[in-house]
């Protein structure tokens, strides 16, 4: 059988995301002995980011990338990390945490199964810092700066920095940085290179925002349950191996980008007193975002103390 995989990512992106997906597809064919394969529909040609969960749930595609931060209300539990910025986990640790939570709290998987979805694997993003037009040494330098914001946690955090959150789409951010419509954008090195933001903003501030989550490699539940046991076992194992493969690719990419920054791209990497950022966690606005998640978790019947503890510095 040929399974379909839908992703918003263009094939030509040639980043850890697209290359690891390519690897996933090849491994699947290899490990099932050529009995099954996966056809990928790249570049959102079948479903845009916002359409993917519905498209997967109703079988438009068998598998696909769900960009979870787009759906805080649809997948509140699986978005835990997004509500807790900053948090101390690295990219690997975030993926590990997701696996652990799915194992320990059935509600995490239920949230997906109730929408006819099944998680094959998790793709966490790299650790984020702040890419700026000017050098930033401490929190006082950020007062009054315009900072690109998106999602649900950054606006409150940026306000706590006494800076101005400016909501921008990913594709607008390049131009906004270039034209100083914003001064800074939270992002990691590999993504900054991928979106070419580092062409127009030359200071990378090591603010410890933590790694973002990320994408769920999800599957239509019926397609998953319709697999024979052997194939399902192959897929389950592949999902675990995928995280290792992806983590290696992502790390290699970050190393390469940081070399490029030192060399021809000329991006200066600056340290930042991390305690100035973690101090902001006590801000009422930031706390309100976290409380919102906790109330959603309570509604879902999750006792979240251990989860929250993991996300504390």
């Amino acid at each position, binding site marked *: 059988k040929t399974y379909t995989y839908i992703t918003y990512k263009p094939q030509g992106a040639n980043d850890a995301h697209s290359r690891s997906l390519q690897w996933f597809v090849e491994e699947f064919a290899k490990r099932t002995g050529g009995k099954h394969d996966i056809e990928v529909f790249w570049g959102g040609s079948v479903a845009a980011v916002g359409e993917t969960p*519905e498209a997967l749930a109703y079988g438009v595609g068998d598998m696909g990338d769900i960009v979870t931060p787009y759906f*805080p*209300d*649809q997948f509140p539990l699986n978005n835990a990390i997004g509500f807790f910025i900053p948090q101390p986990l690295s990219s690997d640790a975030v993926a590990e945490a997701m696996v652990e939570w799915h194992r320990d709290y059935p509600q995490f998987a239920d949230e997906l199964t109730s929408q006819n979805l099944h998680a094959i694997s998790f793709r966490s993003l790299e650790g984020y810092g702040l890419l700026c037009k000017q050098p930033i040494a401490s929190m006082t330098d950020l007062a*009054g700066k*315009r900072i690109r*914001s*998106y*999602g*649900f946690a950054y*606006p409150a955090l940026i306000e706590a920095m006494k800076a*101005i*959150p*400016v*909501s*921008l789409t990913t594709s607008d951010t390049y131009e906004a940085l270039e034209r100083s*419509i914003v001064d800074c954008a939270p992002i990691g090195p590999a993504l900054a290179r991928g979106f070419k933001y580092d062409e127009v903003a030359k200071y990378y501030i090591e603010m410890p925002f933590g790694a973002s989550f990320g994408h769920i490699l999800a599957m239509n539940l019926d397609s998953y349950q319709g697999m024979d046991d052997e194939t399902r076992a192959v897929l389950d194992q592949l999902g675990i191996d995928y995280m290792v493969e992806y983590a290696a690719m992502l790390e290699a990419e970050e190393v390469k980008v940081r070399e490029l920054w030192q060399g021809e791209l000329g991006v200066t990497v600056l340290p930042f007193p991390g305690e100035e950022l973690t101090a902001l966690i006590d801000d009422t606005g930031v706390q309100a975002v976290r409380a919102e998640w906790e109330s959603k978790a309570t509604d879902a019947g999750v006792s979240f103390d251990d989860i929250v503890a993991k996300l504390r510095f």
Partner: protein
Amino acid sequence: MNSLLTVRLAYGQLLTYCGWFAGAATFAMMTIVVANVVARYAFNSSVPGAMELTEGALPLIIFLSLALTQFHGGHIRVSMLTDRLPRTLSQALLVLALLAGAVLFGWAAWAGWLSAEKSLAIGEMKRGSIRYPVWPIKFAVSFGMALLTVQFLIDALCVAVGMPLQDADPEEVE
């Protein structure tokens, strides 16, 4: 036949009210975006939620005007072949074409309604510099497509009984 015309015109009036709302939203969108530019250069600040409001306004603008566009016959169609057919045949084809429109948008309105209900159930919010619930916009999208479905049905009925629809006014065509 006269009462059918009355119904069509009365319905068109309702669509025009929706259109005014969409027009006001367009004007508001222009104002907010300009205010944001001015705020940036004059006061080094920004209008909170300028982007979120612009995003939220566009579905309203589009879907509250779709049916009005059909009422004025502004959706593009090609008539060079059908113009050369016998009148009854071209009339029958046009009725079918209009019913096809009703099928598509009836289906889409129902699908959109399901999506709006889901949004309401999970309390979906737009989260940015400002926050607002998304479900009213999703219901408006579904409502707009339902309006268009009804317009297609009315027009199909009009053509079936031999009432001429007004021709497309070229000024309304992009």
